[in-house]
């Protein structure tokens, strides 16, 4: 998977690069408008992470250039300007998704994967871990061959775990990415605990080989 990060803030660019490389992506970077144009016009990418405010021009213009020149690489806009108008404008000129800064890497990864999945030619891309498989297309979880019925939020929660098995998922990050701002509440940590407990119970009853393990009380990982 080849990804281009267009971001002028070098610390942020480096951070995203390190993270995506740890997720086995092939990463290239651009930090100015011209550099970005040069790269997107000449190489195909599985996804372009595009910042809006760039030295020398706007990320929106990069996107417009791409679409006018039939460059089909999917684009995920990363912007500090979290405004509805910007989001709508970005999606209208052909962005695939929009993520406001600051974001969690877990969320970035989920969005990135779903963009790549949607644009992939060969369709079905199952996430597989031990005897559990997850089909993002159908939002379906199977243990061995038996479907596991999860409600909407339980599925979303489990999807994050399946994206990165064996990696620590922080409670507050999970709460925020799955429940959005609504979970930004006093008792969200206890709340997550109860949701995880339900999920664990379902996995166990269905005979899954994997389990969700609490880590120091700061988060969970799928093992």
């Amino acid at each position: 998977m080849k990804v281009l990060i267009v971001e002028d803030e070098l610390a942020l660019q480096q951070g995203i690069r390190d993270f995506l490389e740890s997720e086995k992506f092939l990463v290239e970077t651009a930090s100015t408008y011209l550099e970005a144009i040069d790269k997107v016009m000449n190489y195909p990418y599985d996804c372009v992470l595009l910042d809006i405010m760039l030295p020398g021009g706007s990320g929106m213009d990069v996107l417009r250039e791409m679409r006018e020149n039939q460059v089909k690489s999917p684009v995920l806009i990363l912007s500090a300007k979290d405004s509805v108008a910007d989001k709508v404008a970005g999606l209208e000129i052909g962005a695939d998704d929009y993520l406001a800064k600051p974001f969690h890497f877990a969320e970035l990864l989920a969005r990135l994967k779903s963009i790549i999945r949607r644009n992939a030619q060969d369709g079905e891309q199952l996430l597989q871990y031990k005897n559990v498989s997850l089909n993002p297309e159908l939002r379906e979880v199977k243990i061995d061959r038996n479907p596991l019925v999860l409600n909407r939020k339980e599925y979303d929660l489990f999807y994050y775990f399946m994206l990165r098995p064996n990696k620590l998922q922080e409670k507050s990050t999970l709460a925020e990415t799955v429940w959005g701002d609504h979970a930004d509440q006093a008792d969200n940590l206890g709340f997550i605990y109860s949701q995880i407990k339900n999920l664990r119970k379902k996995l166990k009853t269905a005979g899954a080989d994997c389990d969700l393990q609490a880590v120091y009380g700061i988060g969970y990982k799928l093992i």
Partner: protein
Amino acid sequence: MAISVKNYTNRFVSIAILIVMAVWAALFYAVIMDEVYDNIDDGLKNQKILIIREAYNNPKLIEESKEFGINQFVIKEVENLQEKVDQNTFSKEFIYMPYDEEEEPYRILRTGFYDPSGKPYQLEIRTSTVEEDDFLLNLAISLLVLYVVIVLSILVINHYILGRAWQPFKQILKNLSKYRFGKANSFVSVESPVLEFNDLNNHISQMIDQNEKVFDSQKRFLENAAHELQTPLAVSINKLELLLENSSLNEEDTVGIVEAKRSLQRMVSLNKSLLTLSRINNQQYAGYESVTINEVIANLLNDYEDLIIYKDIRLDLQQDGNFEVYANPDLMQILFSNLISNAIKYNLPAGELRVRIQSDAAIISNTSQEKALNPEYIFERFYKGSQDHNSNGLGLSIVQTILEKYPFLHIKYSYQNNMQVFEIKKV
């Protein structure tokens, strides 16, 4: 009680005119009476000369003039005259006048003379004079009429002229009342031929421009500051996330990093709220459409479902009507999201959340640990009821800011039956 400037001057004008006219009437009366008596007395003196001359030439006249007859004089014989024969004494007496059938005032001249034989006579000449009381009464009546006419004319003239002259002032007041802070164009300046009103107008316009500039730069500062914070926050959070990926960390370090990240996360949410506030103020939520609040609330309750179940809150949703408003759907979403999120956040475990929707209002009530809140402060920025480290103190202030954009929506807070009640009402 304050009165209009027109009536304010009227009071003084009518009193002043009354005083001036009274003084003028007194002087006028004195002068006129003096002139009248002067004329009458001159006439009497002239008659006296004519009579005495006639009496000298025609002594029969003395015999014929023992009584007042057609001639308005009498000549009486006297023993001895007072020392000064020629002295004229004037007096006023009331004498019956058949025409009027009453006593009327007469001016009387008494004097004396000697006939050619040296015999002393007293001469009394009378003539009808001004009826002072009638004159005074007539004068008073005509002055009163004059006074009323003048005052009425002034009132009418004032009413029209002052009304016209103050018209620009009234217009300025009217335009000022339409002025909304943050919208410089909402004050329309008024052209007037009156110098003072033009001055007033210019000063108000200048003041508004000045205030708007300050307000504008503050708004921009808020937005820029919030924006500029996003990137360093993103960098810090992502760096900490990368550190957490590092499996060689011990428990203590991990917990430390997670705590640091949570603090940053709180800053992010504070920043988001500030940005939301400044966006609402900067008219970035401009679109209007008909929004059904019932749907907005239903969606929100659906989003909050897990949390409501987790907190074991009893939800009581009662829809008595369809509450529709013409507003920006995103703002309505933010508005009710803040209210409902508060009602859940500050609820008691196993508490109660009541949502009641009517055709012109939505009432959200919840049980809470807090007693009645002070409605004067709760909508202020960064006001926190109790030491609540999970709140950024901006939720209700955002609600307030949204409502300022929609003057037809009012919020009312009350504390009833141990419940915090927020009512959004369309008026």
